[in-house]
């Protein structure tokens, strides 16, 4: 996030796109409700009419995968009406002309046709957002989990720069991170191309610095494989061993049947987890780690805030600290590690990572610190890009054309399916479904379907249907609701027995390699 979470409540306009905030980020939603109480205007664009839409000044239902078209339409209106922030553009941005040329060529009638959003609504969205004094954009996986994910994100950046809505208090672009420590896993170099703090493995200086600190002669400079590439590598006999820590790709990843095939094939599968997940059941060796309540350490939340995790109880049975497991394996592998505690590891992180350089466990007593925090005196950074100053110098406009999703509906697979979360569960359900209260709230999966489609299929609420895509089929009961429009169905992905990821499309964005979990084509059949 470019802003702190608390700043959202002081925005005067909030544009929420592709985020089921009330369900997936309840405490961000709280800030939005407070902003509404203070008089903020709320705009929501989402293919599914989620809870937060009920509180919006304007809700528009654009078709899944048409975000770029909608945003380009809004920017066309802004430029046509001269609502752009000319001073901000001149002082703080580059490549505006190429961008403007593309937007000039956009036809609003076409945008309306592609997105299914009324012309007048596109105008209203654009005007309210552009005329705001402090406008904040909030987005989530509804924007990123597409083959056009990076283009969607860049289009939102275009929109914020065009109107100068960035780099001020309560004003910016705020992606909500899906999982609690996604931010931290990225910050810590859990990515194939960077060390901690996004220092590239291909950069000679960074490579040398880490090699020296870690006491090795050299470190690999070739960018590694992403998760889909590793799974593909197993099929091609290029990847032979896999160590999975705390993830459940059999349920979370697209095209589950394909994932299972790869994991069954790999010669050595090591799974480190707290439950015997569907992924762990395929392993050659399972290492019982510990839950957050049994360990010390830190998490970094979606607003870059680093806070402490503290051990409340002893681990169950013979489960061991995850850092201890890695250290033991490393020592037996022949690479010496002798950390006495998570704090010792954190000190090494801070010494090698400028943005974490000023953070210590001692300073984390209290509300935590937001990085960048480069020195012990530094108070942390609540919002990024202050006064229009971007990390890379000037903000870059990108001319982005609308491209349809990888898989579109056709006669054989006439429904567009999209996936997401429900309020009582989290991700693959490994933890929440083992919680009595949460299991009671929502014990099984379901498919949301529009009343008109249900009628055509001759099914009633609670009936079971078979759902099939080009990759697999599953069965579940249906829930009839206006939340989805005709031709669109929605399913949560928490339930392994009705694993929606057997259907989803693994086609991914060429740059970010994010799979298109939000759009695939399916057909439905009544189960008698």
């Amino acid at each position, binding site marked *: 996030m470019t802003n702190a*979470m608390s700043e959202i409540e002081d925005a005067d306009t909030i544009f929420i796109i592709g985020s089921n905030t009330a369900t997936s980020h309840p*405490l961000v939603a709280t800030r939005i409700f407070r902003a509404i109480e203070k008089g903020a205007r709320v705009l929501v664009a989402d293919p599914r009419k989620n809870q937060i839409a009920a509180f919006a000044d304007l809700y528009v239902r654009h078709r899944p995968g048409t975000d770029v078209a909608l945003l380009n339409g809004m920017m066309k209106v802004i430029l046509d009406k001269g609502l752009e922030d000319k001073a901000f553009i001149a002082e703080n941005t580059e490549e505006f002309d190429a961008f403007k040329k593309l937007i000039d060529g956009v036809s609003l009638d076409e945008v309306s046709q592609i997105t299914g959003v009324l012309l007048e609504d596109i105008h209203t969205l654009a005007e309210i957002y552009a005329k705001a004094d402090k406008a904040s954009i909030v987005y989530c996986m509804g924007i*990123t*989990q597409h083959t056009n994910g990076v283009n969607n994100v860049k289009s939102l950046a275009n929109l914020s720069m065009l109107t100068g809505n960035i780099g001020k208090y309560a004003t910016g672009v705020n992606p909500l991170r*899906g*999982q*609690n*420590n*996604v931010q*931290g*896993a990225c910050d*810590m*170099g*859990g*990515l194939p191309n960077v*060390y901690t703090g996004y220092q590239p493995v291909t950069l000679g200086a960074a490579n040398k610095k*880490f*090699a020296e600190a870690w006491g090795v002669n050299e470190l*690999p400079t070739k960018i590694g494989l*992403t*998760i889909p590439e*590793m799974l593909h590598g197993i099929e091609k006999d290029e*990847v*032979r*061993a896999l*160590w999975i*820590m705390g*993830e459940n*790709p059999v349920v979370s990843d697209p095209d589950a049947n394909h994932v299972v095939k790869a994991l069954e094939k790999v010669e*050595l599968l090591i799974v480190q987890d707290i*439950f*015997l997940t569907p992924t762990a059941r395929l*392993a*050659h060796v*399972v*290492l019982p780690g510990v839950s*957050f*309540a049994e360990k010390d*350490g830190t998490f970094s*939340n979606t*607003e870059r805030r680093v806070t402490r995790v*503290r051990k*409340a*109880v002893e681990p*169950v049975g*013979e489960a061991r600290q*995850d850092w201890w497991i*890695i250290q033991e394996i490393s020592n037996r*592998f022949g*690479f010496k590690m002798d950390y006495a505690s998570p704090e010792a*590891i*954190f000190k090494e992180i801070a010494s090698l990572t400028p943005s974490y350089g000023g953070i210590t466990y001692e300073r984390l007593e209290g509300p935590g610190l937001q990085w960048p925090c480069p020195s012990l005196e530094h108070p942390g950074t609540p919002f990024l890009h202050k006064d229009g100053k971007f990390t890379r110098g000037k903000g870059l406009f990108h001319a982005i054309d609308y491209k349809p999703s990888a898989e579109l509906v056709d006669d054989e697979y006439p429904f567009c399916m999209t996936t997401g979360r429900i309020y*009582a569960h*989290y991700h693959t359900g490994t*933890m929440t479904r083992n919680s*009595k209260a*949460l299991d009671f*709230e929502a014990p099984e999966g379901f498919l949301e379907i529009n009343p008109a489609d249900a009628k055509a299929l001759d099914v009633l609420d609670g009936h079971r249907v078979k759902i099939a895509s080009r990759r697999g089929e599953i069965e579940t009961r249906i829930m009839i609701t206006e939340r989805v429009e005709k031709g669109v169905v929605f399913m949560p992905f928490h339930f392994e027995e009705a694993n929606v990821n057997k259907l989803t499309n693994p086609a991914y964005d060429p740059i970010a390699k994010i*799979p298109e*979990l939000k759009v695939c084509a399916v057909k439905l059949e009544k189960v008698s």
Partner: protein
Amino acid sequence: MDYRNTLTTCTYCGCGCNFFLESLDGRLTGTIPCKTSPVNEGKLCIKGWNVHQFVQSEKRLTKPLLRKNGELVEVSWDEALNFVASGLKAAKSASGADSIGFFASAKVTNEENYLMQKFARAAVGTNNIDHCARL
């Protein structure tokens, strides 16, 4: 009776709410939201309120498991760790460091993610490390 409250951070979503885990004689009994946290200011969602419930579930893994004759059976830590270390060594010498892949995790701590990427890069010698940020 040993009653404790331990301030910590939620393991579920990216909001990162702070709360106290309540424990009585080593068993978790409840969750109390932290009023002074700037993130949640004394509030929690339904997942947070019930977060203590899965931790001591009887379904938790309590011992290392190793596949023998097709079945996962309980083994000692020594056996499991040696199996992993020698398996990784064998894979590296047979087909090179890049034949090994690592999934780090959005569920574990910064320290643990750091250590895994250090092991992958410095010990094994590959950048094949990723996590499900994209999911």
